[in-house]
Every structure is written in structure tokens, then in C-alpha cells.
């Protein structure tokens, strides 16, 4: 337990250093890439609630991302709401969308759930593209304002990055608290075995709905952050590819771990930036790397590395952990 507390303290300090350091970053290109990466990380954290902790798949999170972004965009440009209220509204509306999606789909499992959520994402994208009176279709919405904090406008990239990092940390902290509470235990129970969870008195339906709305709400916050950072939204950002990228990030990084989504985002951003010089070959290599990473580290990068490091530091403890996981796997099979 003491070890855990040190780790928590360490990450908090590291997080605060990141927030402060962002303020002193000057390179515009780097600022932009980092801010977008932080927003992707928030999306990954949202999907991790479903995929990692509750054992539900979602291939439609770009839908929530889009709903959050468009809610912010429309409320600030059409109705001239303050950006902060628009952010709150983005959370509420996306969380409600998550609840609505959850109502019919929480009965579904595995592949079916994947396809149903994929359908949700596609429907949102089609609506954004075609409901031109509201969303202006493929033209998108321009001139979305940036929020102001303590009298400082966040339209400058370094302030915005700092704000985004702080939001990510806050969300991570909340997720950490929830996941280690009774709610988190119920979610994990559902992930391991739904029928057993039900028999143990866990309200499976209710907890799944909660996971869907929480996850949708967080993705909505990511959307709001995206909209006011880019000052422009258009439907093409919120397509199937986006949904897929988010899930890939989570599973690559390590689903069901707090650090997994962050590491996944970091590595995928790094790979895609490193490949920028290859131009046309970039996405070909990216696809191949993706397959290779999944084939060689199916459990995710973070658990893979953790295991390696543990083995080196304390072989006996690692062996016990491995043994324990072996039992878990047999149980599930």
C-alpha cells in the first residue's frame, strides 16, 4: 500500500511538472501535436472505461467525440454561450447520448456490441454531414472561441496545452477514484463474468449504463476541448477511422490499466510523427506496425513492459504474478 502511495505522489508531481512545463513550450508545431495527443489520450481514457474495466467494446466513440465538439461549437457560435457552460453542456449531452446508446445495446455482447456501436458512430457522422441546417454539413463550423481562465485567454497554444494536460490529469484522478471504488469493482466483476456478477447481486444493466454514460461524457469533454482548440469542426474528424484509432490506442497501450491509454497515445503519436518523412508510405508502415505490435504484444505495451521490468527487479514476485494471471485466464476460458 505504501508503495502505491509513493507511486501516486510521484505521478501527481510528474503531472504538475507537465502542466507547468507546457507553459514554457515555444515550438508551435510541437505544441499542436502535443495538444492533439492529450485530447486523444482523454478519448482513450474514456474508451478504457468500457473496454478495459467493464469488458464492453465500443467502435463508435467518434460519435460521442463529435457530439461533444458540435455541442460546444453550436452553443458558443450560434447561441453565444460562455465556453465554460458549453463545456459542461458537451459533457451532459454526450453522457446522455451514452445513456441512450446503452439502453438498447447493453444487452449485446462482443461482436454484436462492436457492430451496434459502430452503427451509432456512422449514424452520428451521417447526421453531422447531412443535417445542414444545424451543422452546416461538410462545410463545418468556424470561429469557435477559446475559454478564458483567471483572465488569461487560452487561445495561445502553450496555455491551452497546459489547460488540456490539467484536464487530462483531473479526469485520470476521477477515473482512478471511481475504478477503485465499489463501482469499479462492479465493473470488473461484469468484465470477468456477467452471469456471476448478476448472481452476486450486481445490477449488471445499471452498471453497464453507468459505464456507457461516463465514457460518453468523457469523450464529449475531449470533443469540447478539440472544438475550442481547433476553432473549427467538420464531420470528417468524427468518422469510423477515429473510432477505430481510439480503441486501437487503448488495446495497444494496455486495456484495463490507468497508464495504458497514455502510453498507447504516446507511442502511436510518436510512430505517426516519426513516419511523417515517408509521406505516401506512412500509413502503409503504420498499418504494418499496428499488426506487428498486436501480434507480438497482444496484452498491450504497458503490461508487457511492466512484466519485463518486474522480472528483472524481483523475479520471485513476477513469477507469482504470472502464476496468478495464468489462473485468471483458465477461469475465464
Amino acid at each position, binding site marked *: 500500500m505504501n508503495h502505491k502511495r509513493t507511486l501516486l505522489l510521484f505521478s501527481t508531481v510528474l503531472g504538475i511538472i507537465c502542466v507547468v512545463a507546457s507553459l514554457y513550450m515555444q515550438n508551435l508545431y510541437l505544441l499542436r501535436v502535443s495538444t492533439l495527443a492529450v485530447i486523444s489520450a482523454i478519448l482513450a481514457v474514456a474508451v478504457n472505461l468500457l473496454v478495459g474495466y467493464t469488458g464492453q467494446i465500443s467502435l463508435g466513440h467518434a460519435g460521442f467525440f463529435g457530439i461533444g465538439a458540435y455541442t460546444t461549437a453550436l452553443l458558443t457560435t450560434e447561441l453565444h454561450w460562455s465556453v465554460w457552460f458549453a463545456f459542461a453542456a458537451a459533457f451532459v449531452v454526450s453522457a446522455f447520448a451514452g445513456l441512450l446508446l446503452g439502453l438498447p445495446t447493453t444487452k449485446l455482447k462482443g461482436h454484436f456490441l462492436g457492430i451496434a456501436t459502430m452503427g451509432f458512430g456512422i449514424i452520428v457522422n*451521417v447526421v453531422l454531414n447531412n443535417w445542414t441546417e444545424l451543422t452546416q454539413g461538410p462545410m463545418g463550423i468556424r470561429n469557435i472561441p477559446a475559454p478564458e481562465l483567471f483572465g488569461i485567454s487560452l487561445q495561445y497554444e502553450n496555455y491551452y496545452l497546459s489547460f488540456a494536460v490539467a484536464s487530462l490529469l483531473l479526469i485520470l484522478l476521477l477515473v482512478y477514484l471511481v475504478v477503485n471504488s465499489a463501482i469499479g469493482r462492479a465493473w470488473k466483476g461484469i468484465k470477468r463474468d456477467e*452471469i456471476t456478477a448478476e448472481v452476486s447481486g450486481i445490477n449488471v444493466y445499471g452498471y453497464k449504463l453507468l459505464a456507457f454514460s461516463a465514457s460518453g461524457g468523457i469523450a464529449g469533454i475531449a470533443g469540447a476541448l478539440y472544438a475550442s482548440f481547433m476553432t473549427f469542426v467538420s464531420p470528417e474528424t468524427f468518422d469510423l477511422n477515429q473510432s477505430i484509432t481510439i480503441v486501437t490506442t487503448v488495446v495497444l497501450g494496455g486495456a484495463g490499466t490507468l497508464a495504458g491509454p497514455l502510453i498507447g497515445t504516446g507511442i502511436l503519436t510518436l510512430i505517426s510523427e516519426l513516419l511523417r518523412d515517408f509521406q505516401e508510405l506512412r500509413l502503409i508502415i503504420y498499418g504494418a506496425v499496428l499488426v506487428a505490435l498486436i501480434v507480438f504484444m497482444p496484452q498491450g505495451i504497458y503490461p508487457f513492459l511492466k512484466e519485463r521490468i518486474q522480472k528483472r527487479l524481483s523475479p520471485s514476485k513476477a513469477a507469482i504474478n504470472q502464476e496468478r494471471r495464468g489462473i485468471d485466464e483458465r477461469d475465464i476460458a
Partner: protein
Amino acid sequence: MSELAQTIVNGLAVGTLYSLIALGLTLIYGVMNLSNFAQGEFAMIGGFAALYLVNHGVSYPVAVILSFGVAGIIGFIVHLLAYHPLRKSEHINMMLSSLGVSLFLVNLAQYLFSPNPQVVDSPLAGRNLEVFGIFISQQRILIVAVSLVLCGLTYMLLEYTRFGRAVRAASLDPDTATLYGIPTRRISFMTFVLGVALTGVAGALIAPVYNIYPYMGVSLTTKAFVVVVLGGMGNVVGAIVGGLIVGLIESLAGGYISSGFQDAIVFGVLFLVLVFRPQGILTKVQGEKV
């Protein structure tokens, strides 16, 4: 009246194609328990194979037959590198691997050919047949005929041959099938190759009617999933009937409601099916084993 008939005929013609692609998808799902998100990409491969061959002087019918082989060979390599190593890990991993494969294949096609839509010449192009005031292009008739024949052949292969029995056994219960001496790994390879090769033919068939471009597979994959869910995952007859239904819905929605919202309507129907009959319209209800 004739407009309605025309819409229905067009819908059914597209529907047979969806049937063919969904047939491959549902076979692969049944045996490998894989939602193959790269399925549509094999239609793209078949289309580009036909394009390449026709541009190099091969006649269109031969090109269609060869596209079966090309998609099959690429399918074998994909299975070997991206799916086979993951056969024992969680299902989501294989699914993500298929997404990586899809990304890889789309961008490879974009690199090798071009991102622009291209048309394949077919001897039947531009020729129409008029029946009771309805115009049907002869290429569409070819699509329907070849798709239906292939669906029928595949059905017979599954029902009446040793290989088919092995496939059905492996999809029912792989462990028991292995105990009975069925080489499930080989069956998995063969089913995958057959499934994507059929999809490859579908791609070669649409090449003269619609354009061929690297991203064409994405929408085909999503449609095929709707079909498979509609017909029941792993249900072969369901895939064939489901394909026709989705083709019809899409064509009617596009013609009478809104072409922009076409895809949303198709997925709306999918939602209704998932909520009210998640096992598909043709499969009997089965309880979950505890």
C-alpha cells in the same frame, strides 16, 4: 409504378453482391470467431486485380476468375501473418489486427495504383436489357447471376462435402472438432481463403458498374456486417437472404427518403434488429451456456 420496380430491381442487384461479401464474412466469423474488418478490402483487391489484368490485355471474364485467386493468395498471407499468431489470444486482438490489415491494404493500394476512382472495361458495359419497362444493365445481370451461383455453390460445398462438414463442425465447437480428428487450423486457413476469395470476385464484379478506389472496401465492410447481423452471425442462408434485404432497404431509402441519410437508415434498421432479434432474423433462439 415502374420507378418503384426499377428501384427494387436495382436494390436486389446490389443485394446479391452484399450477400456474396457477407457470405465470406459469416463463414470466417463462424470458424475463426473473427469480425474481419478487412473483409471489404478484399473486394477492393479483387477490383484492382481485375483493373490491372484488363488493362494488360486479359479479357474481363478471365480477370474475374483470376481475381478469385489473387484475393485468395493475399488472404492466405494475411491469415498467416496477422491472424494465425493470435488464434489463442482474446477476440478483440484479432479484430484490431484486422483493422491494421485494413489500413495497410487500403494505403498500399493507394500507393500502388492511385487514390482516384477508376473504371474497369467490361464487354457488357453500357448494354441494357428491357423487361416490362424496367431497364437492367447487362453487367448487373452478370453480377446477380455470378453472385447467386457462387452463393449456391458455397452452400452446397458446406452442406454436402467432407470439407463442408468439417467447417460446420469447427464452427460449432472447435475443441470437440479437434478431438474428432478434424484439422481445425487447416480448416481455419481454408475457410478464410475461401471467404476472402469470394469477396474478391464480388469486387471484380462491381468494378465495371461502380468505380474502383482504395477506400471502397470500408463501406462494403460495414454493409456486410449489417447483413451478417441481420441474418444471424455464422448463418450462411441468413447471409444470403440478409444481403438481399439490405440491398432493398438501401435502394428504397435512397430513392424515396433521402440519399444522404441512406447509410443512417440502414444502420437504424440494424439497431432495431439488434434490439428486438439480436440472434438474427433466421436463427433460432439459444440460451447462453453457463
